[in-house]
């Protein structure tokens, strides 16, 4: 089963959504899949509470913040 991913702009299966945040689920997993899958049950079966907290309840980064973090990280690597 696949749905159209509004972020990537293509059809995608849920297995991608569940690991896309460096092994943690995409923030949109609930919104995208709630009609088709018991998302909460799947997540609770496979992730710890701490992991889910990190995936869904931490402060999201704006695009500019993500860019600046990547700049800092790249400069450290230089």
């Amino acid at each position, binding site marked *: *089963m*696949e*749905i*159209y991913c*509004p*972020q*990537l*702009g*293509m*059809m995608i299966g849920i*297995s*991608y959504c*569940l*690991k*896309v*945040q*460096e*092994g943690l689920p995409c*923030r*949109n*997993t*609930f*919104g*995208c899949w709630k*009609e*088709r*899958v018991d998302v*909460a049950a*799947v997540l*609770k*079966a*496979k*992730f710890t*509470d701490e*992991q*889910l*907290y*990190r*995936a*869904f*309840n931490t*402060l*999201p*980064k*704006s*695009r*500019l*913040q*993500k*860019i*600046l*973090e*990547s*700049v*800092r*990280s*790249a*400069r450290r*690597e*230089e």
Partner: protein
Amino acid sequence: MEKKVFLSEKDMPRAWYNIQADLPHPLPPPLNPATGEPITPDMLEAIFPMNLIEQEMSLSRSIPIPDEVLEQLLLWRPTPMYRATALEKRLGTPARIYYKNEGVSPAGSHKPNTSVAQAYYNKEAGIKRLTTETGAGQWGSALAFACNRFGLEIKVYMVRVSFDQKPYRRMMMETWGGTCVPSPSPDTSAGRGFLEADPDHSGSLGIAISEAIEDAVTSENTKYSLGSVLNHVLLHQSVIGLEARKQLESIGEYPDIIIGCAGGGSNFAGIAFPFIRDKIHGKDIRVIASEPTSCPTLTRGHYVYDFGDTAKTTPLLPMYSIGHGFIPAPIHAGGLRYHGMAPLVSRVFTDGLIEAKAYNQLETFAAGIAFARTEGFIPAPETNHAIACAIEEAKRAKEEGKERVILMNFSGHGIIDLPSYDAYLSGKLQDHVMPDEEIEKLLKELDEYPKPK
């Protein structure tokens, strides 16, 4: 009554419109996540040329479009405005629906309006090469086109799952002379790290961003380019609304409702901001951003997992980050409610200058099919959100017996997105429950995938 409204090349706008000059409340400065202090131009200089950074920070109402940029935009601009007569007839609405067709650009979307400008300013600054990331390739192909026009090299880091499954935009990039690699790639330190952990990594937009920025920071004469969210991107897109206003004026019309789909906000801002200026100065109009219910940034915020109490003893409950009076503490504290959206779009939303509506995937594809079967053009899936909203407003006009004028941005065509239409038409996108055996298979797959500590 004419089907199309053209604007002559000599009447094309010669300056972009910067809404920052008219905002009732100025945009708060972006903060450096490391220090909490406002970002200064020199922090951005590692990845953007100073001429674009100046535009990013500019408060000037009008910024001239350089002749070299205008010359390139003239390849497809001014874009035609259509009256959706067949759609109106199908709906039986007294509303007059106009759409600005941005799908006529070489890359098939509104994106080249900014990619051309960004390529020009980079070249002016002496830059020889650009890097960027792309999901399914819409932005990557637009920037590859623009770099070709100005003789710049370009390397696009494309999320691997898209690179493997959706090759046509990669082919477009390569046709225009660009280099496109799957991300994570072995070409950067960030990419190598992810490949070491999982050689079959599917990639993500976050990883592709890291790779594109690392490449820009560590390579000679190279900068990074972004196709949404930032102020200068929205500035370049204002040409859409400026043209639309002139086209409507030429036939004695002015819109009651302006509609654009909103993901990162750039095409919405492009059609809407010149009209929001009129609203700020007293025009009685409605401006609507339409977005997916799956990630409703403006209407409901994002889904979050609420622990219910700080001790994390109550069951996890999924809910939206805004709406129903619930805002998770970190989001509330950070004041970052609409974090996926362009700050300027978030600002006009917070100021009550625009409304937001969300539509689910099935509604939007139904709208796209209705549009294709009446107006002929097959819309990009994201454009379908604007069409769904326009149809809803046209039906409301019918119920209320009002002759409203609706202006919508047709942000791109969907010729390269036909697999998603195929899924819709074959019933695969219906809201049915995933079978148990498929869920069991999925859970087994997850067991095999490395999880973060």
